[in-house]
């Protein structure tokens, strides 16, 4: 999807603010399933977004520290292990402690619909469930996340 001038939304944003949107894609907890996370990281990068991929087996602390160091605008977490009800809120808690409330937290994985409202209430902006087309996630990031500065 391009603007009238033929630029992608990410490029248009970059022109306006002087920098690319920066997203951290993270794999929290012990879950080793990274097929989805890698695809999303690649798709976001192809769409002109700056992507930092943490790799596997990150604690919530490691993720938030990396997010701070890399000065990201958003964090996407992928969780397929069933530990989402602990890991997402823990990351929110740490973001608040570090005064990074404006970093947008989103994610996906194996998350039953029933659990989503609770996660949203606790501070997760959006949860993507299995079968979501990749473009939907790219569009969400373009629409929802701006460079923080």
């Amino acid at each position, binding site marked *: 999807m391009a603007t009238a001038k033929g630029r992608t939304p990410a490029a248009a944003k970059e022109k306006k603010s002087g920098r690319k949107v920066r997203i951290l894609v993270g794999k929290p907890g*012990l879950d080793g399933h990274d097929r989805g996370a890698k695809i999303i990281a690649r798709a976001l990068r192809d769409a002109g977004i700056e992507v930092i991929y943490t790799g*596997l087996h990150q604690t919530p602390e490691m993720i938030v520290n990396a997010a701070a160091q890399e000065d990201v605008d958003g964090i996407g977490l992928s969780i397929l292990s069933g530990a989402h009800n602990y890991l997402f809120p823990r990351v929110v808690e740490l973001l608040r402690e570090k005064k990074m409330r404006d970093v947008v937290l989103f994610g996906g994985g194996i998350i039953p619909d029933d659990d989503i409202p609770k996660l949203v209430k606790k501070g997760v902006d959006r949860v993507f469930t299995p079968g979501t087309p990749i473009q939907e996630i790219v569009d969400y990031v373009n629409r929802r996340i701006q460079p923080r500065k």
Partner: protein
Amino acid sequence: MYDRKKLAGIAAQGKQWAAETLEPALKRSPERRKRFSTVSDEEIGILYTPEALSDLDYGEDLGYPGRYPFTRGVQPSMYRGRLWTMRQFAGFGSAEDTNARFKFLLSQGQTGLSTAFHFPTLMGYDSDSPRAKGEVGMCGVAVDSLKDMEILFDGIPLDQVTTSMTINGPAAMVFAMYLAVAEKQGIPFHKVGGTIQNDILKEYIAQHSWIFPPEPSMRIITDILAYCADNVPKWNTISISGYHIREAGSTAVQELAFTIADGIAYVQAGIDAGIPVDKFAPRLSYFFNAHIDFFEEIAKYRAARRMWARIMRERFHAKDENSWKLRFHTQTAGCTLTAQQPMNNVVRVALQALSAVLGGTQSLHTNSMDETLALPTEQAVTVALRTQQILAEESGVANTIDPLGGSFFVERLTNEMEEKAMEYIRKIDDMGGMVAAIKRGYPQREVADAAFRYQRQVDAGEKRIVGVNAYRSAEESPIPLLKIDPEVEKRQVARTAEVRRKRDAKKAKRCISALKEGSLDPKVNLMPLLLDAARSYVTLGEMCDALRETMGVYTDPAMF
């Protein structure tokens, strides 16, 4: 296999058919697509005739079941002698919860056990480790010590049931605990049968539940090969797996090639460790995916058998024919299940199970319809088990061996898969073998690229998935889902604390020291030391921490 003259006649007829019959029909009504391809994107032709098999030699390429090259099956009577083992992967919550599920499945007619451990166990952590928070019992059973193992197999005689355990990084530790349970049941090790997955190479490639770096991990594996050859002769020491590589997004050919390449690496490692090949090779086993493209999967299994037989006999000079036999377990593809319209998954699983049976699998797990969202409920796993039973009892497919043998299409596909997979294997050999290939990220990148390509095709509508990008429902009816009690974590933490309190602390400490010391000497087999530790209620986390110190840890290179 075919008379040259007759083949020429058939070819001529084929040309005539294409020009005079097919061409006009296509002009009136063109094909549905520009290109027909498998889920792995291999192009498939409109028709296969004897021309496709002009070089096939029945004796050399197909042969008879139970004889080299085993293309048609590894056992002489296959399912007429004994059906495949119905072995449903199960595990959640506490050892008590899973023991109950084991007993339920056995009562419903399954014929072997298969254990799913929770993530802390898979990664070598106890349930009270800070790394385990929120994960306890969530996607498998919590096993921290021998105490949990005893409860897990309570009332299950280990000389009468075989158990497969999906465990890799800490496979040796968990295996030691299993043996210690058998010992407590009064069963001699030579009567114990089962499998540990113990395939660390595919962990680096796909499943990612590793602990140590490649070299020390291979040492642990060769220790297991040697130990079992002498002490646990009925045990399948490795389940060399393609399932996970496929789940991570590889094509069928990559699944076949990388799995066999892993097998080659293990055989070489065993030989390099000084174990005669015929002493350990007969107890290597395999584990493949049953994905959704029906004929591609059947061809894959048949190609795998023939490839392994040839490799073991010609490359490794194994003399025992049992060393040439590729025996395998199959699981239907989790990645093909959809969260949308979950009952459709029952159909997918049935087709996938059928392909595994027509492909000659020795053992089979069928997924439950609800597994895109949660671990299986009792109702869902019963339907999955019944799927196998209906195949076995009602469909007639087990009445004869390799019923698709001789199909022009299936034999051609089998040949092509072998050729393409061997190309990959040659490439990996040129890199110095699988360990070297993994270190440079080769199989990981191939898998990630294939996964990305496939996703692009799905999102573009080129690959259609019913309920997801075709035939969607406006409204979805929710199905009941299994929920894990959050109290499981509290109770498990308390139990493990009690185990540590009650055990002989000095003995446990001695075992841990002995383990560390032994790990520094490559001539020491770690299995007896791990057995001692297990018997003394050293926890899994403690065993793994001891070896983390001496062997190091592996971290994800994080490439995408």
